[in-house]
């Protein structure tokens, strides 16, 4: 009997590839011999667009990269411009940034958790996490009036102070959210079928994770202890007591579980930030027209997907000469092709889902 490998396109319309990502699979039966990821279906040229906008006008474009955690996307960009101009952000603004940033992280991890359950075949998880994500989005809407593309950060601070009605709502959320995490653990993490599908599947050894510049939960699931909030604290993160959860095996299960553990830590950070938050200004004294001196700056933050960096070059005019974004989803995908080799088609879905990509960020 003569057998031969055949080629199957997974995506771009497959739900697990978010509709804008394709993996060309060369298959031997159901086993993947070679996998070639093809991004680019959503590419909008944000880096080029930024060159024709003023520094402030770039902020809404960053929202549209990782639209599940827009606040964090704002943060990386404004941090780079602030570094370029030497702006000192007021303390209250830093605390607000931490609070909304961590809320965004929770919102993003909730999508990752729920959608991963759905990828594996349990749609209930999706409903549960989105129920709680609504609460987070309600709070963020109170702050900035938007539910997805927040554009709340400004160069030198944030757009507005937290409204009064935000405080009772967040207290209520802090009190109830750990129980929600327990619920996800009971519903998904503890599920036998889920474990059978994810444990020891798509293992990334720590040295490979470092070599391929992976970051965020994908890196830490392999046991590499690196979190910018801890290892190189920016903003006011050095004032909070929290842990960086680590995985043991670097498999799909660890990557999934880590996000739930991280959400629990985020709640701890928000709680402390609310307690410590000082009164005062929320904006530094920044000229109306932003004209940074000639030069360049690179700043990075720990986004929900990993290290998010912005490299900004100024020629002294009102528009950035060049902006480059280091998007964690894009770089985390760089190892996907090799990671899928030797696994079955169904495992490819499990592996792709566990990396937690947002295509807006991959294609930028």
């Amino acid at each position, binding site marked *: 009997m003569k057998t031969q490998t055949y080629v199957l396109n997974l995506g771009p319309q497959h739900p697990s590839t978010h509709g804008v990502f394709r993996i060309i699979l060369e298959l031997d039966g159901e086993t993947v011999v070679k996998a070639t990821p093809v991004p680019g279906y959503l590419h909008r040229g944000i880096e*080029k667009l930024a060159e024709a906008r003023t520094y402030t006008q770039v902020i809404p474009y960053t929202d549209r990269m990782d639209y599940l955690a827009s606040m964090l996307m704002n943060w990386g960009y404004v941090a780079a411009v602030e570094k370029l101009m030497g702006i000192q952000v007021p303390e209250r603004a830093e605390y607000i940034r931490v609070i909304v940033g961590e809320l965004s992280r929770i919102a993003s991890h909730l999508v990752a958790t729920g959608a991963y359950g759905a990828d594996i075949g349990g749609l209930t998880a999706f409903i549960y996490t989105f129920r709680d994500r609504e609460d987070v989005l309600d709070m963020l809407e109170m702050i900035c009036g938007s539910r997805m593309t927040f554009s709340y950060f400004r160069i030198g601070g944030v757009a507005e102070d937290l409204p009064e009605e935000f405080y009772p709502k967040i207290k209520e959320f802090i009190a109830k959210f750990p129980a929600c995490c327990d619920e996800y653990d009971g519903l998904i993490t503890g599920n036998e079928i889920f474990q059978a599908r994810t444990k020891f599947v798509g293992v990334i050894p720590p040295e490979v994770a*470092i*070599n*391929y510049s992976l970051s965020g939960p994908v890196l830490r699931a392999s046991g590499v202890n690196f979190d910018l909030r801890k290892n*190189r604290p920016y903003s006011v993160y050095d004032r909070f007591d929290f842990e960086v959860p680590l995985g043991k095996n670097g498999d799909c299960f660890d990557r999934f579980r880590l996000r739930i553990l991280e959400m629990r830590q985020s709640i701890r950070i928000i709680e402390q930030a609310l307690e410590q938050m000082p009164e005062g200004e929320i904006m530094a004294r920044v000229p109306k027209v932003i004209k940074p001196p000639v030069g*360049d700056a690179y700043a*990075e933050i720990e986004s929900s997907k990993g290290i998010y960096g912005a*490299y900004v070059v100024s020629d002294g005019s009102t528009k950035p000469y060049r902006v*480059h974004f280091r998007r964690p989803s894009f*770089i985390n995908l760089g190892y996907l092709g090799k990671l899928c080799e030797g696994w079955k088609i169904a495992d490819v879905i499990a592996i792709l889902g566990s990396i937690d990509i947002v295509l807006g960020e991959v294609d930028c």
Partner: protein
Amino acid sequence: MAQKQLPAELLAALSEKFPGLQVAENQVITVDAARLLPLMQELKENPDYAMDYLTNLTGVDYADRFEMVYNLISFEHGYELMVKCPLPDKENPSVPSLCPLWGGANWQEREVYDLMGINFTGYPGHPTRIFLEDNFPGHPLRKDFQWEGGREA
């Protein structure tokens, strides 16, 4: 932002090993393309630096040159470093690929090739476009890029 910089003696040792290296006040290192690969290898493999993580890699189109920018982190020591590599040949910009050192350079170099048209010598195979179609004319992140029917610069 709290950042840990390379100690002065390590920088001095680096300048000694690679003569002609420019070290700016803010520790940005500028190296020519010929010595980029050995320098990166030294930074990665010498345990004094242990810069085993290539965070970021990108290119900039200046009026007289292209310039590659690399950001490195050492997990062990916590150092971070920016390395710049100017490419004076504006017509045919080319730089050694870092793929032999880091797997993470692979996709990032493909992105730079696609959008900026910089060639990477030693890239496994040849860098192919990653975001745009294979037959797309030109490289959009170049300053002189103008597409038919596009907005005037």
